[in-house]
């Protein structure tokens, strides 16, 4: 092995100096000749024999013979491809689409399923989860628990708690919302992050942060907001109105503890009061669970050992089971929610590539038939079959590489477009790190090579079959032998079958999208503006917050063009639902009592009016339902059905948090937690009797909401110029965003289905057209002896029908089996839906009809005189 390598390098060196080596060899042999003459051999030149041969042979010792041949073959193939530009263009374009789509989807698979946090040894990172009903679920811990473990656990090389929060950031006058992370002291140590500027905080800084607030910036944020100034360390910035000293900047490339997000600022968790003022007065250390724990396993410790130790060290976990799970993707990876759709898409594009390969193989077969004579001649004068096959495979490889290169360029564009699609209506911080890395490039190169073999092998094998006579005898290329026709027909059958699989899948996904997009939401999201404004984020106290919000709401209602306005804690499709446990006197929960946890929402009067929901019974909240009034609630139909079976809801009581609440109204069900989820049992409480911060302002406008936005912002800023307004959008954008995955799946699969059908159509057309050309003389004879044109057309129609039927008969069961994998992605349609299958078959049959009609028409119109003269 070693000797081989040495030889290889010697050859490489020799190759770079081959001219000099040639000269030296010539000189050496000339010396030899002179010496021979001197020694008295007059016939020296004769004796030297064939000097050129000797030199050739000497040279060959040093060359890479295979490489030479491949270069030769490649040149030959390039010439051939240039001679048929239409073929080359079609081949490269279809490959580029196939490989491009595959590479693009793979780069998403890479970013979402394969990539890991860009920190040293990410494989040793673990998230600490809890086993809930047999499944690990992301744990949320009090800060004290994390800090206790950090002090006492021996299995970890650092453990930290993490929480994210939008932070209002300002260096002077205006404020903006940025992505903040609140973390405990071992955050940077655990992730092994180095500073680019200054230093990063540690346990001591976090402990002392109460008197000495510090923060750390991300590299990108530092570049953007501080123009990469090296004097940033020590500077003072204002976060939610509080002064913080910048300690340093994290190393380039680090973007936080979540793979698919990026942070701007990290602050010590001990300063949480500044960032979650809504819950002021709560015991942050012990009382509230709000931190996601994550740790780095020490070398030599297994996850099980660490789990045991964690359970032992936490005194209040007697009945809880800890589970340490893969943390290499950080906290909350998108893996769980996007994994299935992505794999489904990956399968679809792989199928499309297969159809494209079948098409190319078909084209190459036709091309090889046109060159059958050339090959027969070459085989008969002694060219080896292997040599010819190699030449054809090199041609395929060139096509695949061309298609692959174009595909990678295309993939970049597709990726960008898809990402933009994915981020529609998403307010903050979804970042996919999509840049093509070594893994993506390797994937596309391997894919190109695989396709070259896939579509090149069969044609090369067929074309070089050593049955010389037919090729030599046939004047103008016959049908090319029965096996060749069979191969081409089977390729078309495969294409049709695969296309049916794709079309059926696309049909199911499209019907899912239609069902979801046209579902009755129970509220009207159009023309409702939502804007997030939190006076507490500028350091206002509780009473001020209420006063400010009331003033904003009052002025908004007075605005001409606003039909209704209200405040809400969780707007429809909002990400943070509030669930609390509730007791209903007279209702006995089954099982473990978990059933009694329901969704709560805090609203101001006119909420239902603003959203266009209908109040079915009782009354809406009004100004009287304030802090000092008796507690009241409005529930939805589903709640009534589930908990108040048959009783009159208005006047009934709920028990929550030790107090009694009277139900004063019933509202119609709404799909306000995502269309797919459907209505949930919900209890609405007046915001004045509950949450006073973190509210969203909703305003229903009479006409175009875009034009109302500036007036709304002006109202907010006339009350407090420094109030940052976060995420201004209309509610229908939120609804749209909730269907992004379904929309991407629906659109893309339809697009790919159309592409596959087109390719299959081209394949069918090619086979039939070729069949017509080959049987021209036969057609002439038939017509001459009196066959009707319809008989001639029928001849080819039968051929086409047979191919399509076989394809569909094979494809249908395969489609039904494959669709099972889609089951969890479907909504409102079964994975074996017969109507969708029927529609898919009809669509494919129509495409096949179209592809058949042109050659059929040509056959029927053929002039018998010309046909008979056909050579």
């Amino acid at each position: 092995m070693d000797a081989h390598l040495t030889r290889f390098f010697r050859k490489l060196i020799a190759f770079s100096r081959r001219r000099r080596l040639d000269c030296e060899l010539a000189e050496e042999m000339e010396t030899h000749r002179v010496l021979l003459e001197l020694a008295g051999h007059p016939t020296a030149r004769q004796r030297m024999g064939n000097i050129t041969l000797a030199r050739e042979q000497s040279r060959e010792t040093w060359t890479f013979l295979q490489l030479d041949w491949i270069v030769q073959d490649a040149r030959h193939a390039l010439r051939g491809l240039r001679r048929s530009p239409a073929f080359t263009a079609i081949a490269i374009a279809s490959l580029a689409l196939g490989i491009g789509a595959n590479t693009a989807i793979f780069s998403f698979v890479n970013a979402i399923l394969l990539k890991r946090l860009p920190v040293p040894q990410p494989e040793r990172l673990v998230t600490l989860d809890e086993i809930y009903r047999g499944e690990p679920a992301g744990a949320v811990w009090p800060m004290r628990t994390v800090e206790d473990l950090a002090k006492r656990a021996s299995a970890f090389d650092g453990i930290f708690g993490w929480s994210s929060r939008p932070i209002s950031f300002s260096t002077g006058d205006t404020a903006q919302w940025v992505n903040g992370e609140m973390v405990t002291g071992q955050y940077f140590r655990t992730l092994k992050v180095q500073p680019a500027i200054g230093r990063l905080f540690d346990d001591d800084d976090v402990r002392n942060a109460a008197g000495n607030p510090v923060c750390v910036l991300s590299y990108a944020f530092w570049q953007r907001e501080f123009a990469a100034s090296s004097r940033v360390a020590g500077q003072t910035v204002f976060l939610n109105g509080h002064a913080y000293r910048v300690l340093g900047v994290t190393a380039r490339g680090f973007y936080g503890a979540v793979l698919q997000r990026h942070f701007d600022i990290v602050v010590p968790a001990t300063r949480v009061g500044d960032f979650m003022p809504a819950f002021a007065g709560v015991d942050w250390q012990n009382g509230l669970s709000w931190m996601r724990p994550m740790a780095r396993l020490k070398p030599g410790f297994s996850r099980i050992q660490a789990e045991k130790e964690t359970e032992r060290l936490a005194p209040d976990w007697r009945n809880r089971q800890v589970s340490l799970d893969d943390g290499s993707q950080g906290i909350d990876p998108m893996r769980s929610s996007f994994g299935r759709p992505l794999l489904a898409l990956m399968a679809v594009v792989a199928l499309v590539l297969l159809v494209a390969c079948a098409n190319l193989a078909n084209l190459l077969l036709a091309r090889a038939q046109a060159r059958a004579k050339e090959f027969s001649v070459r085989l008969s004068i002694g060219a080896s079959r292997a040599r010819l096959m190699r030449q054809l495979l090199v041609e395929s490889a060139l096509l695949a590489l061309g298609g692959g290169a174009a595909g990678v360029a295309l993939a970049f564009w597709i990726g960008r477009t898809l990402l933009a699609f994915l981020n529609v209506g998403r307010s903050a911080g979804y970042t996919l790190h999509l840049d093509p890395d070594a893994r993506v490039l390797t994937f596309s190169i391997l894919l190109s090579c695989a396709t070259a073999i896939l579509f090149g092998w069969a044609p090369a094998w067929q074309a070089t079959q050593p049955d010389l006579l037919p090729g030599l005898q046939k004047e103008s290329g016959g049908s090319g032998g029965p096996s060749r026709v069979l191969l081409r027909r089977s390729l078309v059958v495969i294409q049709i079958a695969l296309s049916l699989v794709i079309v059926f899948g696309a049909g199911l996904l499209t019907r899912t999208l239609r069902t979801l997009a046209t579902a009755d939401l129970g509220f009207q999201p159009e023309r409702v503006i939502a804007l997030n404004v939190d006076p507490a984020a500028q350091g206002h106290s509780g009473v001020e917050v209420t006063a400010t919000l009331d003033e904003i709401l009052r002025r908004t209602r007075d605005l001409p063009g606003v039909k209704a306005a209200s405040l809400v804690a969780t707007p429809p499709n909002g990400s943070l639902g509030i669930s609390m446990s509730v007791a209903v006197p007279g209702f006995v929960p089954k099982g473990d009592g978990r059933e009694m946890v329901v969704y709560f929402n805090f609203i101001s009067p006119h909420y239902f009016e603003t959203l266009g929901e209908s109040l079915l019974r009782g009354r809406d909240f009004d100004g009287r339902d304030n802090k000092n009034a008796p507690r009241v609630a409005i529930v939805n139909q589903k709640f009534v059905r589930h908990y108040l079976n048959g009783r009159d809801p208005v006047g009934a009581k709920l028990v929550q948090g030790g107090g009694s609440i009277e139900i004063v109204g019933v509202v119609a069900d709404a799909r306000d937690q995502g269309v797919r989820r459907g209505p949930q049992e919900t209890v609405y409480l007046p915001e004045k009797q509950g949450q006073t911060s973190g509210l969203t302002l909703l305003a229903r406008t009479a006409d175009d909401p875009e034009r109302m936005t500036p007036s709304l912002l002006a109202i907010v800023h006339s009350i407090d110029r420094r109030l940052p307004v976060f995420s201004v959008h209309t509610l229908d954008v939120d609804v749209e965003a909730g269907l992004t995955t379904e929309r991407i799946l629906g659109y893309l699969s339809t697009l790919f289905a159309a592409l596959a059908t087109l390719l299959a159509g081209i394949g069918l057309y090619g086979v039939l057209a070729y069949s017509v050309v080959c049987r021209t003389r036969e057609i002439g004879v038939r017509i001459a002896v009196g066959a009707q044109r319809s008989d001639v057309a029928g001849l080819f129609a039968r051929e086409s029908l047979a191919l399509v039927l076989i394809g569909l008969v094979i494809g249908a069961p395969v489609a039904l089996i494959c669709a099972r994998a889609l089951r969890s992605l479907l909504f409102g349609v079964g994975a074996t839906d017969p109507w969708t299958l029927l529609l898919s078959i009809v669509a494919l049959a129509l495409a096949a009809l179209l592809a058949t009609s042109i050659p059929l028409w040509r056959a029927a119109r053929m002039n018998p005189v010309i046909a008979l003269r056909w050579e």
Partner: protein
Amino acid sequence: MGERSSPSELLPGTLDLLILRTLVLGKMHGYGIAQRLKQVSDEVLQVGESSLYPALQRLLLNGWVKAEWGASESNRRARYYTLTAAGRKQLTVEREQFSRMIAAIHKVLDMA
């Protein structure tokens, strides 16, 4: 009558061995090697130049000999070949193989 080998035709692979053995005596150019082989073998082994030079290239590639330019007796530049350490080792190996082969051939020829 079968086709006959020419008298100087060697067993395949033996040329490399002979060249290596010749170079044990010291550095030599191509012509010198050919002459020495001829002399030592009493004119039986006449190595054609068209096999000598490819063989030398092969030995160079394998790193068994190395070459340097020097002046020849004709006042022309000539390439002189020297045995390398690896070449010496290879010589032993090939020599053993060759002896085994000859012994085997003898056995066949001498069988009763």
